[in-house]
């Protein structure tokens, strides 16, 4: 049977992608940020999974206002990096895992989460920047990726509670897949940032670090934090952090298993407008 081996959490700031693509990673501004991911790239090489289930949000790229799915699972064979207005990022095509993705879709919908199934979708920086941070600049990504897009653009976004419960349903779905696949689940976005209005540039490092503490030790309690606290404390775009609760909900301890091991923790301000947070948690 398939199993979840680890979860990874990281911000997905577009400027990080631009810094990689334009060869700026050794500039003083970016050095401390990329240093925080050196361990992660080695860890990824040592622990390459068979599939990555990647929770992210689309930033008005694949989904305009014509359709706004709350939860969308990519079941296609491949996904093309999108042109977000600057031209597509020069990164490899994302290869999907239609078989596992379709299995998860069927299982999770039968478990009362009404997913939208997407068979054609370009993927934006929300998905490709985490892959770049964790895998560097390979000619092909190290394994297939199942994109899982969450609406955090038009309010109301799903609650932290809903995301945490969805993660549990995704774990059940993966564990019922009849192939011995090692699956990682990634939660991306955040941390504190606000990109709009006179309050743009808001950063709340204390709140972010408490979020990291609680995500590790008390995800159940953290899942009860209401939207308004994210907006007030972590900025209007900080609400992306609810997506981390999907990945955390899929870990073994939430279903009564052993606590995960914290392999890596990193926090840095700023990347462009944003506080960057990063965790790696391993199941046993």
């Amino acid at each position, binding site marked *: 049977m398939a199993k979840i081996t680890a979860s990874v959490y990281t911000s997905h700031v577009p400027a990080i992608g631009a810094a990689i693509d334009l060869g700026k990673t050794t500039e003083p501004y970016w050095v401390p940020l990329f240093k925080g991911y050196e361990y992660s790239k080695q860890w990824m090489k040592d622990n390459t999974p068979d599939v990555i289930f990647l929770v992210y949000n689309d930033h008005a790229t694949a989904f305009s206002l014509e359709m706004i799915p709350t939860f969308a699972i990519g079941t296609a064979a491949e996904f093309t990096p999108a042109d977000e207005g600057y031209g597509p990022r020069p990164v490899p095509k994302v290869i999907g895992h239609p078989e596992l993705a379709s299995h998860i879709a069927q299982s999770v919908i039968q478990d009362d989460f009404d997913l939208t199934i997407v068979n054609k979708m370009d993927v934006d920086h929300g998905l490709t920047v985490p892959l770049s941070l964790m895998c560097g600049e390979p000619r092909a990504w190290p394994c297939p990726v199942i994109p899982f897009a969450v609406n955090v653009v038009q309010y109301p976004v799903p609650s932290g509670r809903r995301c945490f419960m969805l993660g549990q349903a995704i774990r059940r779905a993966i564990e019922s897949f009849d192939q011995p696949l090692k699956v990682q689940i990634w939660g991306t976005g955040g941390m504190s940032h606000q990109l709009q*209005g*006179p*309050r*743009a540039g808001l950063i709340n490092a204390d709140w972010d670090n408490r979020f990291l503490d609680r995500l590790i030790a008390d995800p159940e309690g953290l899942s009860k934090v209401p939207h308004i606290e994210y907006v007030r404390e972590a900025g209007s775009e900080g609400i992306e952090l609810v997506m981390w609760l999907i990945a955390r909900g899929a870990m073994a301890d939430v279903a009564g298993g052993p606590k995960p091991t914290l392999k890596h923790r990193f926090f840095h301000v*700023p990347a462009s407008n944003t506080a960057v947070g990063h965790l790696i948690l391993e199941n046993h």
Partner: protein
Amino acid sequence: MSLDKPYLDVPGTTIFDAEQSRKGYWLNQFCMSLMKAENRARFKAGERAYLDEWAMTEEQKQAVLARDLNRCIALGGNIYFLAKIGATDGKSFQQMAGSMTGMTEDEYRAMMLAGGRSVEGNRRLGEDGDAQPQHQPQGAAGKKATN
């Protein structure tokens, strides 16, 4: 029954909810069109003519022509959509975000390097933080514009 909108008292912040989305539908859809290179070229060649192809209000068109992102957001725009205008202009997200504060690019960049804007005084309307209405515009760029 009215909807619960607990976010209306956050200063300097517009939450893109169903009501804003409805107001900004065509403005945001115009922005989406700029994801195609040929549309970016057509828009740059004649902004007004291109905007007139969309069912936007005159106010929305003026806000786009002026690149007044705060105004665009008040009229239903969302930053992830409006970012396509910035991309067309060759602006970074930091330049776009900064433009809404009244700060110059250098002032905004310096604020971010120093750890970003503090949440203190900026949680609720009526407090005294730098994002509050009584402290706008915040920087040299905004002060120059209002003189």
